[in-house]
């Protein structure tokens, strides 16, 4: 535990030292603001209503970003689960779609963003679709691979117990895919954040990414750095929550891996 905290403490110490050095030379330095500036900025963004809109900006930004993130990841997950299982189970689906998905996965999603803005307008849809397009090919391929990994013996065994194809999917395949789907979503969340921030930076009126890129014009490091820390914290919490859920909901999965 101590060893794990050490690098964090080190980074904070280096920052504090650098910040103090710069502020000693120039008290108006904006690059490495001191702790008091951070506290002011966080207080202003999180606990004071914005003068122009009356909103508490940190919370409205967080809400806007998380809605987009969840909508994008959830739709990608639903699509990938259904499609991935079909590709994994049905040889005809695999032959038809596996190469297509492999190629689609190679398209840099950000290159498609202008198309999405043209097609869906600058509203929420384009951002959600960008996230979904960005992560769906990965999750789909991962799920298809995990389905193929289920030993053939299990499927045959289910058949000898009188299972039809539907029962095999719902009682044998799907229950074993859930925890693996959580792994897959956890791995793709990093990419999802990337696409979210990018979309917000380019065209948006709210959101964590929007705020960071807006304040960049004013070199407002006192707000940008806490925002980055906040995004990191959110990502860590979501990841930990998914891991905890996986452990609680699928005890057999952890047991099988150890």
């Amino acid at each position, binding site marked *: 535990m101590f060893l794990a905290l050490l690098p964090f403490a080190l980074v904070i110490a280096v920052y504090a030292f650098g910040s103090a050095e710069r502020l000693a030379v120039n008290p108006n330095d904006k690059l490495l603001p001191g702790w008091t500036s951070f506290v002011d900025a966080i207080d202003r963004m999180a606990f004071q209503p914005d003068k122009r809109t009356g909103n508490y900006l940190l919370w409205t930004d967080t809400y806007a970003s998380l809605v987009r993130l969840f909508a994008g990841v959830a739709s990608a997950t639903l699509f990938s689960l259904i499609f991935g299982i079909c590709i994994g189970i049905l040889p005809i689906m695999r032959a038809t779609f596996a190469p297509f998905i492999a190629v689609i996965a190679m398209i840099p999603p950000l290159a498609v963003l202008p198309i999405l803005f043209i097609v869906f307008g600058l509203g929420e849809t384009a951002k959600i679709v960008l996230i979904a397009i960005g992560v769906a090919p990965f999750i789909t391929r991962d799920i298809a691979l995990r389905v193929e990994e289920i*030993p053939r*013996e*299990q499927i*045959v*065994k*289910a*058949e*000898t*117990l*009188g*299972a*039809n194809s*539907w*029962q095999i999917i*719902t*009682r*044998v395949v799907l*229950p*074993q895919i859930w925890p693996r789907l959580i792994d897959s979503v956890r791995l793709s969340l990093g990419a999802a954040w990337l696409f979210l921030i990018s979309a917000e930076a380019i065209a948006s009126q709210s959101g964590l990414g929007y705020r960071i890129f807006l304040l960049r014009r004013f070199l407002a490091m006192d707000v940008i750095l806490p925002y980055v820390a906040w995004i990191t914290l959110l990502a860590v919490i979501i990841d930990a929550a998914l891991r905890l859920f996986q452990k609680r909901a*699928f*005890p*057999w*999965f952890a*047991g*099988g891996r*150890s």
Partner: protein
Amino acid sequence: MTTISIRDVWKEYDDQVVLERVSLEIEPHAFVLIVGASGCGKSTLLRMLLGQEQPSRGEILIDGTPLPPEPGPDRGVVFQRYSVFPHLTVRENVTLGLEFGQAPIAGRLFGGARKRAIAEAEHYIELVGLEQAMDKYPSALSGGMQQRLAIAQALITKPKVLLLDEPFGALDPGIRADMHELVIKLWQDSKMTVFMVSHDLSEAFYLGTRLITLDRRRNRPEERERYGASITHDIPITRRRENRHRGIKLAEGDVL
């Protein structure tokens, strides 16, 4: 009582002949042991009985009707590994066979039907001696216990034929002897025919009422692909059965 006829069955993959001219008439309630060298088609024969693979030529009849072209609940199976479902507890693993049969859409039973299914499953779990582990997941069971579970799971659909593909190959000798006693008891108490693939001749002589050996009659490298294995010995085993009924165990590796 179930009779099985295997009539002039061949199995070929592309150009390679794996099995040729396999014909067998299996009497009701037989315990058939299939032995042979690796790659001689033992498991292929078992998979054809299972319906997982189809004969290239010839036919397999159960009680006079041709075998359906896919696995079904009248033929239970236990593989060497991966026979049980890791995401279900012992109780759920065994109940599953009843749920598949009785709930084609939901795949689950509710209320009274569920209670009855669970009670029946628990009966089979007790038969194989796993009553202490009802709520455990397979990952928490030893290899021998997992195979016990796989057997209970296969028996709950009351199959006419039980197919065992080297089920004890990965177990310790002591555990294996316990499993032999269990399998013999379950077989004696039922009407089912058992087919078991084994590497171990002493195991085969000990368990079986009939021993089938598969081998290639021609084994020169240039002939291997064109000539498959067929039955080289078909030995009825009767003299050991009295011993078995008296409960005399053979030591592991005993030469018979």
